[in-house]
């Protein structure tokens, strides 16, 4: 029973830790599938987290916070679009720039507005997204195994967490079953063909970045308004890059993305749980190794040693209309 509890707890924190990764990963999926590399996921999450927590604490409403998070994330996505679509700038350079602007401005504005060393005030009950108890969770709590799984593992997450996992089938549907999705995939592979068909490459890519902005905003809001009751300097701590790694790991496919994020979330949860406890056989595993594992796995995957990750063909190349 004890081991069962430990497993449930580890899986539960796996879910929690993979939510922001999943949202950011799906965000990256929209933009990269349309042929826009996005190193700036990290920065967009960070401004989302800051805007969400700041607005929530000023207006005392979690939903205004969420709206603000999404709005600001979108505007940063639009800067990326303006640089890399309209002005055909280097997409990687633009992403790097966004990460710096985000890292600096969140602290400067946070300090100027709240005077708490770059933090936002701690969010009260109604200003953050509290856990939702799924219907019947309390009733089945005592049913062994299944009831336990339902009430402990599946129930009790915040609204954004459920949205994140709902986004997986939705993204799949959008990508493979709608006209927009077909065009999105096409513009990432061969924008000239899309252009020839009379569809605006620019407008399509901007819409893709719009989706990216919404999802990174959600991811940021989850960090500052669910996982943590307020914004802390640099709180994304490389999650945007792990999401990028997960996206490659998932070979740019939505369902794979979920599993990749769950895997990376699990590694993170395991690293926290195993801190200092020696494993049987292997002995003590350094925390740093567990933390580096997602990156190492991604490098190995990218090198083509476990399957081959082939990015969208037009990724990273600005589209110049024939003239």
């Amino acid at each position: 029973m004890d081991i069962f509890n430990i497993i449930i707890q580890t899986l539960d924190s796996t879910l929690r830790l993979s939510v922001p990764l999943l949202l950011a990963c799906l965000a990256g999926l929209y933009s990269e599938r349309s042929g826009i590399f996005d190193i700036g996921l990290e920065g967009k999450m960070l401004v989302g987290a800051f805007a969400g927590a700041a607005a929530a604490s000023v207006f005392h409403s979690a939903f205004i916070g969420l709206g603000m998070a999404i709005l600001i994330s979108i505007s940063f996505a639009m800067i990326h679009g303006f640089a890399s679509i309209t002005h055909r700038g280097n997409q990687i350079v633009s992403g790097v720039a966004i990460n710096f602007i985000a890292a600096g401005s969140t602290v400067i504005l946070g300090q100027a507005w709240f005077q708490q060393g770059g933090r936002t005030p701690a969010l009260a009950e109604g200003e953050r997204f509290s856990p939702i108890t799924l219907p019947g969770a309390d009733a089945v709590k005592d049913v062994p195994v299944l009831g336990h799984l339902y009430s402990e593992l599946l129930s009790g997450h915040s609204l954004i967490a459920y949205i994140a996992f709902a986004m997986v089938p939705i993204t799949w549907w959008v990508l493979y079953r709608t006209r927009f999705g077909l065009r999105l995939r096409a513009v990432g592979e061969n924008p000239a063909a899309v252009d020839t068909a009379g569809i605006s490459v620019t407008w399509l890519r901007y819409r893709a970045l719009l989706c990216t902005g919404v999802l990174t905003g959600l991811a940021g809001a989850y960090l500052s308004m669910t996982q943590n009751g307020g914004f802390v300097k640099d709180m994304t701590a490389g999650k945007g890059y792990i999401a990028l790694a997960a996206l490659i790991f998932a070979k740019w496919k939505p369902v794979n993305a979920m599993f990749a994020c769950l895997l990376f979330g699990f590694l993170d949860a395991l690293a926290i749980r195993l801190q200092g406890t020696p494993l049987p056989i292997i002995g003590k595993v350094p925390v740093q190794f567990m933390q580096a594992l997602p990156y190492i796995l991604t490098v190995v995957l990218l090198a083509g040693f476990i399957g081959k990750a082939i990015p969208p063909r037009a990724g990273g190349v600005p589209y110049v209309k024939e003239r």
Partner: protein
Amino acid sequence: MSTPYAKLPAWADYGLIPLINLAVAFIVAGFVVLLVGENPFRAAAILVEGAFGRGQGIAFTLYYATTFIFTGLSVAVAVHCGLFNIGTEGQAYIAGLGVAVVCLTFDATLPWWLTFPLATLAAAAMGALWALLPAYLQAKRGSHIVITTIMFNFIAASIMVYLLVGMLKPVGSMAPQTRIFLEGAQLPKLNWVIELFGARVRSAPLNISFLLALLMAFLTWVLIWRTRLGYEIRTYGHSPKAARYAGISETRIIIITMMISGALGGMMALNPTMGDQHNVAIDFVSGAGFVGIAVALMGRSHPVGIVLAAILFGMLYQGGAELAFEMPAISRDMIVIIQGLVILFAGALEHMFRPSIQALFASFSPKSVGMAAAKGKGA
């Protein structure tokens, strides 16, 4: 890749456009200062005064510039080959291991002028090695160098943290850093050079690695524009297809370029460790590798431009520290914003003002932009 823009005279291309981009970046930064509720002009005055007002400030500015010359050159060499080395940060961090090993081994026995070259070699070797794997993977397995080098940054950070809280830490100490290096691994200061000009320097970490940085800038210029290898690098950067056609080995050129880039990035580790803190501490690179990206973009990947851009960023770092002291609302993070804006306007949006400047030039003298004088005749 063909640029969809007509040519401008060289002075406009290398002087005017970067200056306009820089000016716009600073104007936007000024708005952020305004948003915070401070006077941007006063802030700028404090910044410049803090960086160049006294000998002390100048020495600090050049100390920071040393670091950024190394990282800027590192990014620039890769750029000439068409590679985006975002991993300078990690290469410099891991090079700290090379410095630590050399210094901890020899600091009691050898004088600094022997430890310094050894440490330089070790740092360069570690940086180059850390760039080797991403380069190999790009050349042979086709994995994107940007992604691999990002991953390697994180892996480097993990390794260094592991070593600094473990093996490299002296017994009984809590701080995650090596012991203080003895005299044999402390670089001589260069502050007397500034004092020659009559300014006074109390204590600043400007050290001999500044000269190494200038030497490396010169050698980079020689390499890129005066050697066969440099020619091959530029050819590959311009057109990989043409390079292949000319019989240049793709694998060889990518791996060599990235190793040079990594070595230059690695040498950055000398300045803060042997030059200033006299130990290797956790996170001693603190983003200098990323500043290198901004410096390389600003400097148009030319060593002269890089030295100037590095001094500019050194000024921002030193002046920014003074600014944070005078205006508490503006912390060092302001520099991070400026850095981001410079990367945005000088890098990603470098073509934004080009069409209008071209139009301006064309209206004054059509010849200067390479347009035929008879404009009205139609296509």
